[in-house]
């Protein structure tokens, strides 16, 4: 116990005054005698100082002394001093990259194992940063942290921690499998062996794959071929034309890089020419086709090519040459051509047609080629007078379908291709990198003056009772 105003303790000298006063006022012992006959004949006198007896124990006096001591103690501003941990303000950055979903030997993912290392106190103030489909931030206390962490999972792609680390206020606790300078790491690595696909593309009829491999050499079977992997490796294979290709490796502890699906899909179909209401309605009815002002677009993928359909263009499109215009009368189609499948040639009509040279023709008027396709483009050298025919929507459905098959191979983002950094599951072999971070302790005072005042009151009551009892 310490005192905020220790000078008040000098008032304890009052105890001496109390004792002296008590001795002075102390009542004499009561003695019952058979008779006062003789005692009355003895003169009364003041007791000499040397005859002062050692004071007998007096409960009342003791309690009075305790009252004085308690009051004096309360006046001295007593307090109990102890050190108490100071609530911390912590920024926690969660690495939710795909690599954190790698499974360790103990069956936990890296993410779960690293999160378990976090130790916070219920009154710590926490700011949580992570990325799922966008950067996220959450603020709360240590008491709420666990329930929030259960809602957060790694994403199937890489994440940029730099952006999060730049905004997080220090100190920053990093939950990851790789350390970062300037952070307190709660790291869970361990997994070193992994084989994954880090690049997949198709050029023409050739599939190109790049593998990442960490660990001892192993052989894997890819599209029916045995491949020996001793480290990173590139691999090519001729493939036939198909709309969808799945490349899959044997499952290991990091499964996100074990499967890639490639789907042939152009980035967009551009419609050049005139706008036509019937054409717009037909295109809108085809799945995944959206209509712009002058273009029809599929969902756009970055870096991919385009498929263009020219309708009665005013000039010659690239790779094609337009001839003279004429009024067509009879129409014929190339045999078993996918663009003219299910069309009726006897209902075809146009005001004027232009002969199209170049590419592969698939539609003829009066024996002259008036429609052809080449290198991701279709040229229709006639107007849309036939838009009211049944063949009209059939042709456009065929055309969009054709565009899809003639589009560039693109690796989709869905079941997906991770970057090489995600497949690199080596590096951290330790199970964890940081233990509990100790909280600073600060002195805390607990005033107890009120306690002493209460004690003084209690002692006073007891002293009064003891005094009454002794009378």
């Amino acid at each position, binding site marked *: 116990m310490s005192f905020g105003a220790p000078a008040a303790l000098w008032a304890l000298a009052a105890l001496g005054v109390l004792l002296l006063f008590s001795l002075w006022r102390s009542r*004499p012992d*009561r*003695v019952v*005698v058979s*008779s*006062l006959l003789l005692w009355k004949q*003895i003169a009364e006198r003041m007791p*000499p100082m040397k005859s002062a*007896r050692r004071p007998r124990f007096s409960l009342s006096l003791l309690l009075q002394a305790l009252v004085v001591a308690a009051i004096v103690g309360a006046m001295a501003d007593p307090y109990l001093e102890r050190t108490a941990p100071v609530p911390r303000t912590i920024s926690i950055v969660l690495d939710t990259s795909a690599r954190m979903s790698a499974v360790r030997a103990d069956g936990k993912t890296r993410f779960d194992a690293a999160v378990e290392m976090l130790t916070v106190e219920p009154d710590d103030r926490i700011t949580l940063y992570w990325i799922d489909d966008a950067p996220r931030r959450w603020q709360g206390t240590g008491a709420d942290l666990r329930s929030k962490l259960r809602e957060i999972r790694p994403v199937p792609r890489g994440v940029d921690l730099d952006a999060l680390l730049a905004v997080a206020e220090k100190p920053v606790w990093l939950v990851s499998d790789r350390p970062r300078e300037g952070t307190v790491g709660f790291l869970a690595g361990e997994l070193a062996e992994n084989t994954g696909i880090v690049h997949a593309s198709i050029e023409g009829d050739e599939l190109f794959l790049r593998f990442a491999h960490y660990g001892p050499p192993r052989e894997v079977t890819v599209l029916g071929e045995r491949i020996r992997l001793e480290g990173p490796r590139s691999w090519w294979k001729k493939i036939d034309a198909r709309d969808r290709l799945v490349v899959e490796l044997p499952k290991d502890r990091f499964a996100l890089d074990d499967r890639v699906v490639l789907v042939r899909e152009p980035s967009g179909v551009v419609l050049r020419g005139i706008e036509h209401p019937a054409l717009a309605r037909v295109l809108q009815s085809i799945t995944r086709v959206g209509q712009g002002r002058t273009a029809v677009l599929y969902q756009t993928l970055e870096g991919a090519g385009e498929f263009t359909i020219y309708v009665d263009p005013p000039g010659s499109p690239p790779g094609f040459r337009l001839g003279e215009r004429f009024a067509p009368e009879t129409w014929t189609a190339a045999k078993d051509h996918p663009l003219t499948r299910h069309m009726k040639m006897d209902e075809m009509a146009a005001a004027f047609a232009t002969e199209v040279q170049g590419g592969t023709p698939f539609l003829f008027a009066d024996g002259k080629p008036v429609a052809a396709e080449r290198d991701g483009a279709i040229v229709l050298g006639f107007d849309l007078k036939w838009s009211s025919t049944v063949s009209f929507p059939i042709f456009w459905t065929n055309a969009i379908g054709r565009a899809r098959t003639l589009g560039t191979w693109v690796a989709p983002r869905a079941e997906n291709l991770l970057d090489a950094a995600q497949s690199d599951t080596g590096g951290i072999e330790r199970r964890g990198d940081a233990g509990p971070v100790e909280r600073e302790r600060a002195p805390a005072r607990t005033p107890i003056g009120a306690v002493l005042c209460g004690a003084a009151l209690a002692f006073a009551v007891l002293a009064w009772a003891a005094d009454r009892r002794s009378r």
Partner: protein
Amino acid sequence: MTFDEDVLRRLESLRLAVRRARGREGDRPTPRRGGAAEFVAHRTYTVGDEIRSIDWHVYARLGQLFVRERSREEEPTLHLVIDASASMQGKLEIARRIAAGLAIAVLAEGGRVVAGGRTFEQLPSLLETLEGASGGEFPERGFVAYFSDLWDERAREPLVAAREAAVIHVLTPEELRPPAMGRARLRDVETGDEIERFVGEEELAKYAELLAAHCESWKRWCREHGMSYVRCASDAPWFEVVTVTLREAGVIE
């Protein structure tokens, strides 16, 4: 209250030292028992005198009737009077035992004991009564044994009425030699009066003087009135008080 055989035997051998009254034969018959008769004188026969008291030898010589007068010792009667005031606490036990000792001696020689207003001729019933006996009256005839702490001067007055008496002054050790108490509030057990005194060495010395004077005053008064005075402490051996102290005081022979 019980006594073993040896104590009883020794007590029964004691005799109360009293002035024993002598009556004259020829008087009206009185209920007397025992006692020796002694010739005192002749007197003329009168109607009513006992025939057996006629001295026929004198009649043969003188031809006139004369009766012989004799004296006879009366059996002693012991009156036990025990002070029953509040100040006698702690002293009653020894007072009763000493009283019992005296009573045993009197009963052994055929006397009577009066205690608590009752007359006893048998020891067992007397002892039962003495267990809680206190009080009593001062008779004019008989021997009175008065047990008290003599703090009340008014006790002298009724004592005067007794012709023969022994005053046994019983005091506790605390009354005889009170301890130093320092500053004390003294309370009279009987009156409730209180005084404050510092009781130190000086006061104790003064007390001893006053106590000695008080006892001496009673002793002198008893002597002046023909009474025996015995002082004993309440913690003294009662048998020794009876057989030694009372004997030395002339109460027992």
